[in-house]
């Protein structure tokens, strides 16, 4: 699949935004303390801005955006519709939470805790829906994989934990030990899961040119695709980055997304080098971009079989 920048930016940025907001609310619910209201509003604003920027960018790849409002209408069947509904539903819930918290001067009442918990669930649901949009597509076996949705969720929560750590260091000059250690643990889990994912998509399986054409017991070879220029199908689905480039990018992704942030966060925590955590965030962001780029570039739609590929 051809990686479109607007979709990469959307999934990465809104993933971080929702992750950050989840951590912000979760930390208040866990500790029962709100801390500085000013800081809460600041972090909340940043998280909501990131999520909104991502969502706005996702409308950029629409060919007919004037009908985008209709996208909320098929909640019962479409994951894209569900994502739209949850992302929109999140705004009133988190804004009510922030407003009520601000209005009673930072006191966490039971009602507020319930609203906070609801906002957490909606944010989780939004990210899960993003993952399910891809995981529900049967013609792309690299996406129709049980690890795709957990990975989307993990990367959102992990990057959110780092963003929370970074912002709490910037605003309160102290690291939250819970968020920091959670980040390290989540990073290890996502690395492990990503490696298992790479292993599982490496196995040759699924449709072949034989099952695509019906000639399951013969050798099939494309002679003529029927067109001598690009078509919508070749432009949308045929994307070859080259095996060597993909492999190099996998390593670059592992370095930028896992190794560098881990070392920098440990350095921040153990040796008190505060700026390191900012570089960790930058490295993680670029790492996530490469991860998302690879997610598209390595996905092979079965339509490619009709254009000459031997297997999916």
């Amino acid at each position: 699949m051809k990686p479109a920048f607007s979709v990469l930016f959307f999934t990465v940025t809104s993933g971080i935004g929702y992750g950050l907001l989840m951590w912000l609310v979760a930390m208040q619910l866990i500790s029962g303390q709100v801390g500085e209201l000013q800081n809460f509003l600041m972090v909340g604003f940043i998280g909501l801005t990131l999520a909104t920027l991502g969502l706005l960018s996702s409308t950029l790849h629409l060919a007919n955006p004037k009908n985008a409002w209709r996208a909320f209408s098929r909640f019962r069947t479409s994951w894209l519709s569900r994502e739209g509904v949850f992302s929109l539903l999140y705004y009133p819930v988190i804004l009510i939470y922030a407003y009520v918290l601000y209005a009673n001067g930072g006191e966490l009442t039971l009602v507020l805790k319930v609203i906070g918990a609801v906002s957490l669930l909606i944010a989780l649901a939004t990210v899960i829906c993003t993952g399910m949009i891809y995981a529900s597509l049967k013609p792309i076996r690299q996406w129709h994989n049980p690890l795709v949705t957990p990975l989307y969720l993990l990367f959102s929560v992990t990057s959110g934990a780092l963003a929370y750590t970074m912002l709490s260091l910037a605003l309160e000059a102290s690291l939250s030990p819970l968020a920091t250690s959670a980040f390290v643990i989540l990073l290890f889990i996502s690395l492990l899961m990503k490696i298992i994912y790479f292993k599982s998509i490496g196995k040759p399986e699924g449709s072949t040119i034989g099952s695509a054409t019906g000639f399951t017991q013969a050798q099939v070879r494309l002679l003529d695709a029927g067109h001598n220029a690009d078509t919508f199908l070749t432009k949308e689905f045929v994307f070859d980055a080259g095996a060597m480039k993909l492999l190099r990018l996998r390593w670059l992704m592992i370095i930028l997304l896992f190794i560098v942030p881990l070392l920098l966060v440990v350095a921040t925590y153990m040796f008190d080098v505060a700026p390191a955590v900012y570089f960790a965030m930058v490295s993680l962001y670029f790492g996530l971009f490469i991860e998302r780029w690879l997610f598209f570039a390595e996905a092979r739609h079965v339509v490619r079989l009709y254009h000459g590929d031997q297997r999916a």
Partner: protein
Amino acid sequence: MKLGLVIDLDTCVGCHACATACKQWNTSGTIGPLSDQNPYGKNPIGSWLNRIRTYEVKEPSADPKLSKADQRLPSDNQESSCGSQQFDLYALATKGESTLSFAGINSATGAPASKTVHMPMSCMQCEDADCVTVCPTGASYKRAEDGIVLIDQDKCMGCNLCSWACPYGARELDEEQGVMKKCTLCVDRIYDEKLPESERQPACVLSCPTSSRVFGDFDDPSSDVSRLTIERGGKGLMPELGYKPTNRYLPPRETAQVPAMAKTKQPALSKLKKWANRVIAR
């Protein structure tokens, strides 16, 4: 009703008449226009609802290097490669129901049996059409009364998700209008009572010079499409994905082997005639 097409891979000659007739009809039909970008330029591109691809289909054992690449090919077929020159093209799907197979091109030199197959593809009007369920706007829908999958051009937002969900490449975005286009099974022809009854068929079916395309109701066991599917072992493509495509493809028929022409001895009289003709012509 379950309307759909049967496409005969035995008789299709790959002339692209179905594709051009489809484009001609539908560009001014209910979902039209089907726009083209840069149509006379270097890299023309446009929306087509029908595409024809050509494949070489040959015995798996013919090229050991290629056979090795495809692990799913049964190795026991290799024994019959030189002897009977037969291989069951659709044997996996039709096991137990039909023994349709076609004899490969026999050759005195033992060249592999192979055949050129033209494969026209349009929307399969799937029973479990994921293109419909993934659509967030409700633009894509499958009609309950006849099973035709359609796109409401006024509701589509052009997100491309339905084209990603389609394994058959049946949906193409119209870049000019920003909405998705797909085969309508010529819904604006087949129910048009102003047309003579023989013309109430999709444009691709009417235009096919070899009658390789047949249109009809798969729910009706006496219809041409049902009969052909049973008689010839018609098959849906990529059944493993579970979309339950309606359209059926008929495998190439078992053809009589053409014997190699032996050099015949010419009688003396015809030799004389030939010589006389040559002399007179001079």
